């Protein structure tokens, strides 16, 4: 029995932390506030305030425990100030060179402190913040984003905290422009296509009430999992339901983890009958890109735009 409870507890904690991230995301600016007392951190208001960032010294020994934050730091030119990243940080290539065995899920504050950091960046899903505070180590929290504005705000906050305000502003501007362009380039369809986003091969999915849903929402796509809204945002759909819904598009976010491909989906018994499989509208989105909210979200948006164009070509002829 014990093992089952352990598994339940672990999964419960996982689900809880996902939910907690979602709830907290709106207040990520205020949760970052403790950092303001000990380091050059963003102001306590939600709006970025670059002028206050010049007040303190710029951190030279950053430890990142969040793969998303790692991507942001390197994208705004703060990579040279990073001394260590956690085991899950695998992008960009320069970050991999600084990979350590540090864990963002089960952080060991002693191991982190051993790097003598002057700024620790994490996602706030653990009690690490309080532990670092008690050691007097500045830390910045970037919880899971729920909206694109959350992402831009986190990038600007990191820019302010690391002395790269201009680069952060430029990155945000570029991202906004690229995303706007991708959305504008996508064909407008009379009848919005319906999609199924697959998190793993046992048919866990997401509703529109998540950041992933936000990405597809840019294009007006409709999510087949939305009928579960209100109970959970990460439902395990029944296979019968997916096939009977016959989604126009399937997005696989389980290619890296689980080896799912367009072919493996087509080989699932019964799936040939779905519109997406019969028209070849099965698209692979890198697991890491789909589960992070960093600068590469632009790639995600562009992939969805390409998928839209593909579907439009189908209906055109």
């Amino acid at each position, binding site marked *: 029995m014990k093992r089952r409870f352990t598994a339940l507890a672990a*999964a419960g904690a996982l689900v809880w932390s996902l939910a907690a991230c979602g709830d907290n995301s709106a207040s990520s600016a205020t949760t970052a506030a403790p950092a303001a007392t000990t380091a050059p951190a963003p102001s306590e208001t939600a709006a970025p305030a670059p002028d206050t960032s010049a007040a303190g010294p710029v951190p030279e020994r950053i430890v990142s425990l969040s793969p998303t934050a790692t991507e942001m730091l390197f994208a705004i030119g703060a990579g040279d100030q990073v001394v260590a990243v956690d085991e899950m940080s695998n992008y960009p290539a320069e970050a991999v060179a600084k990979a350590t065995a540090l864990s963002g899920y089960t952080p060991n504050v002693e191991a982190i402190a051993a790097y003598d950091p002057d700024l620790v960046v994490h996602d706030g899903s653990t009690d690490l913040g309080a532990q670092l505070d008690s050691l007097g180590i500045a830390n910045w929290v970037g919880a899971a984003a729920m909206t694109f504005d959350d992402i831009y705000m986190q990038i600007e906050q990191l820019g302010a905290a690391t002395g790269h305000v201009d680069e952060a502003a430029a990155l945000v501007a570029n991202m906004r422009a690229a995303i706007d362009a991708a959305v504008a380039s996508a064909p407008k369809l009379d009848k919005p296509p319906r999609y199924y986003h697959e998190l793993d*091969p*046992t048919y866990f999915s997401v509703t529109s009430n998540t950041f992933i849903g936000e990405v597809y929402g840019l294009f007006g796509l409709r999510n087949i999992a939305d009928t579960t809204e209100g109970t959970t945002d990460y439902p*395990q759909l029944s*296979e*019968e339901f997916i*096939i*009977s*819904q016959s989604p126009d598009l399937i997005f696989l976010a389980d290619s890296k983890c689980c080896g799912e491909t367009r072919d493996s989906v087509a080989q699932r018994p019964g799936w040939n*009958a779905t519109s997406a499989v019969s028209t070849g509208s099965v698209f692979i989105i890198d697991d890491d890109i789909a589960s992070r909210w960093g600068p590469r979200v632009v790639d995600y948006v562009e992939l969805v735009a390409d998928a839209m164009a593909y579907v439009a070509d189908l209906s055109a002829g």
Partner: protein
Amino acid sequence: MAEPHALPATRGRWWLPVSLVVLLGALALGVMVGPAGSWGSADWNIIWNVRMPRVALAGIVGAMLSLAGASYQGVFRNPLVDPYLLGVAAGAGLGATIVFALGRSTTAGWPVDPLPVVAFVGGLLAVLLTYLVGASFGAGRSGVTLVLAGVAVTSLATAVQAFVLQRNNDVIREVYSWILGRLTTATWSDVRLVLPYVVVSSIVLLLHRRHLDVLRVGDDEAAALGTQVQRVRLAVVIAATMGTAAVVSVSGLIGFVGIVVPHAVRLLAGSSYRRLLPLSLVIGAAFLILADIPGRVLQNPAETPIGVVTAFLGAPFFILVLRTRKVAA
């Protein structure tokens, strides 16, 4: 101990036909109800490719777990033993966790999916270890030392699994959904994969049902009556473990079936193994088919893991059985 089966032999005659009718009803209901609509409104493609293999697999898994549970209870003379107590589940779970930790994309290109194979080997190794440890300390005479050895092996395998999971946080959800039961992705090839093991295991176990009745009087007495106790015990344990490991490898860990069903059958039809084993097989199949229906439609279109449903039904029943036994003692 009370001997309900000492009642006139005719008492149990009706139970096999009745349970077969129940199984047929469960099969019909299982095939008719589902998220894609009832029989007639749902696509034949969905019913044939998705729903029917799932119903069939649920039946096979339920039958095997119940039969194995009843056999273990007989061979160890311990009513609380189920296929999981001897380390089968923990060993299989560890094997599956290791495959998930390797990365499913790494293993996707392999000619044979290693998941069921490694889970099967893990379950078998765990029981082998349990048997060796139990036999060396208890001289193989008592079922109690074996069960204690099973507890120790389970803890060991669980600890290793927790360590592997700790090092591979990214696969926690996959392992978790495997542990809570994987009927959600059942296909006909899963059915074909387990059926040979289940058939062989069931035949061996059913052939030993009379020996299990003799074993109830105790090892020494059974030996005096001419039963080769060690040989029977080994044959039953190996057959039950093989069947359990095979179904666990495709269905994940589905709890409580191996305890709930044999005890329900005992309450209804008496505790003679001649009746208990075939009835457990049939009722177990019906039970898991029926338990899977709420799994599919309760939160439609979302799934309720079958492990949750069986434990939710099983735990209160288990308490009831414990209470009844206390009163009887």
